[in-house]
């Protein structure tokens, strides 16, 4: 009995192995296709940004950039004067000086300040919710959680009105104010990790005469390095990607962030269409910081997404 069933199992496994070869070819085809679909748009942006701006109309679809040049990057970074290029036949490029350095700096300031503030203040709150007993603690935490469910636009309009009424439109503090003190997600995220942290070390430090804030700052936070990094990363990327709020509050050119600058640049159409090579160079500049973060911390982001699936 057992011998027969064993051979049957073996036969089945052999058949499965034969099928697998055919199956794995299909599998690898799909994986290849997925990677291609994901990567190709990025490649095409880089390819366009490197294309000779005088020859985009005649060479729009070749796989490699025609007459590769860095001139598009130089002109969106304000390093070259576009006038000679226009004279040389690049009629469809932006005639003004554009300086993406400023927008890059603004995006870094905007995302950086929000990240530091939000991560710190949300962690403090999360620590209090996880460790201290104080009146209305659970009620306040529950109300925070309901904040997760309100659609952005419901808050957006009154926030805009409020920032307008206190005269913060067109200021940096107006741009960062709604994000810098907390988000319900950040508090929730950090609280989960503080709850799972062993209290022994903290209690020992308290016995040694450390203050509660000292314990938080020198023991609990350093132990939370991993989750803190993840939260900071997600906050940074989220703020970096923000569009409507900085568009409405930071219209001024000195405050303009990359997403807003790109859309404004897109709407300037020298010859009835956007300055494509310049626009794509600007797009590459906006993508690079995210790619760098991704190369160093991509794994962390993927893990955090897997975490959020279980909350």
């Amino acid at each position: 009995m057992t011998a027969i069933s064993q051979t049957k199992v073996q036969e089945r496994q052999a058949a499965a192995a034969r099928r697998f070869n055919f199956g794995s070819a299909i599998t690898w085809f799909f994986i290849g296709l997925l990677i291609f679909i994901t990567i190709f748009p990025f490649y095409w942006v880089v390819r366009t940004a490197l294309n000779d701006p005088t020859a985009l109309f005649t060479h729009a679809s070749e796989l490699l950039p025609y007459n590769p040049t860095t001139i598009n990057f130089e002109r969106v970074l304000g390093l070259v004067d576009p006038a000679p290029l226009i004279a040389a036949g690049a009629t469809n490029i932006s005639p003004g000086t554009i300086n993406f350095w400023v927008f890059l700096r603004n995006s870094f300031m905007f995302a950086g300040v929000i990240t530091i503030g939000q991560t710190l203040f949300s962690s403090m709150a999360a620590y209090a919710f996880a460790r201290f007993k104080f009146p209305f603690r659970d009620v306040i935490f529950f109300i925070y959680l309901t904040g997760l469910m309100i659609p952005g636009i419901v808050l957006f309009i009154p926030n805009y009105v409020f920032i307008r009424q206190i005269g913060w439109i067109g200021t940096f503090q107006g741009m960062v104010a709604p994000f810098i003190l907390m988000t319900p997600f950040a508090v929730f995220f950090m609280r989960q990790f503080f709850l799972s942290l062993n209290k022994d070390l903290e209690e020992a430090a308290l016995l040694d005469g450390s203050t509660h804030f000292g314990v938080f700052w020198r023991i609990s936070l350093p132990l939370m390095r991993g989750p803190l990094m993840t939260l900071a990363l997600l906050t940074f990327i989220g703020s970096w990607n923000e569009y409507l709020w900085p568009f409405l509050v930071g219209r001024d050119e000195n405050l303009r962030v990359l997403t807003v600058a790109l859309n404004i640049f897109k709407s300037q159409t020298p010859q009835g269409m956007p300055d494509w090579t310049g626009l794509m160079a600007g797009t590459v500049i906006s993508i690079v910081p995210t790619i760098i973060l991704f190369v160093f911390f991509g794994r962390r982001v993927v893990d955090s997404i897997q975490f959020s699936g279980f909350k």
Partner: protein
Amino acid sequence: MAVTSVSSRSEAPPPPGFFSRLGNNQALLGILFILPSLIGFTVFFAAPAVRSVFISFQEWNLLTDAEYVGLENYQNILELSFNPLESAAQDSDDVLPDDFDELARVQVGGGGFVIGARDPRFYRSLGVTITYVLFNIPLQTVLALGIAILMEKAANSPLLRGIMILPWLMPNVIVAMLFIWLLDPTLGVINIFLQQTGVGQQGFFGSPDQAIASVAGVNIWRHMGYTAILIFAGLKTIPKSLYEASRVDGANGLVQFLRITLPLLRPVLVFVLVTSVIGSFQIFDTIAVATEGGPAGATRTIIYYIYEQVFERRINMGVATAASVVLFLILVSVTLIQIRTFQGNTSELADYS
């Protein structure tokens, strides 16, 4: 010298600062620790949520004083009027009450009726949004499920997961930029390819029939990897022993998928559906960059409608907030329906553990 200063610092008791004087008063410490977040929550979450409801009962253009108008804003966007037609030739305007514009006209034989609304754009934007969600969510979820299974069975590689997450890390504005260029009618590589292969040039964002589907396609591209990773995490929680046991019982791959994978994945799938539907209803950035609500209102989703009320047309804060409150109620209902339908709060996995 440096060494002594370091060691003396570590041995010295902490200076009796502000925090040490608080001692072990947990109530005070707790309040102090949550204070920044409490201010942030009160000013930028709680207050605006309440204020949205207040403004929705007002007529207000930001420049003059607000005026209480009761339910008028809700009436303006929601009230419908049904008007029978006496003949098929009759003009819609003849049967509609004043202040009402045609939303839809239904002809039955010689007669029929006309449905009017005070601002038909609201219901149209609702229709556009629902169309968008229906284009976006089913395809995105099925693709993500397929990719997740592929990742789990054949390509369990962090590198692949990393690549697949890349689009989701990009701003919507950037993603829109990538695709307005790829899909450009004359210079876009996809259109050039379609022309060369004989399919012919497509309008995509510029075509009233294709615009909303194109926006949905772009968002599927951005979100399918992210969604796949969420589902992948769920797949990993299913015990391998279940598959082995069912294989011994002679179950094939399809049966295993229907009887084991799908039921055990249900909580994760519900989480994915609920969050992606909520996100999908709030589509804005892509539209602001790629189509600006056009062509001819074909991509004017609810959020874009609200945006126009505040920033593009005659400033109408009341209507804008009323529409956002209606959107909130729609989202709550849709979420509750989904959770009820799929019973997302229970898991068969509990039976096995």
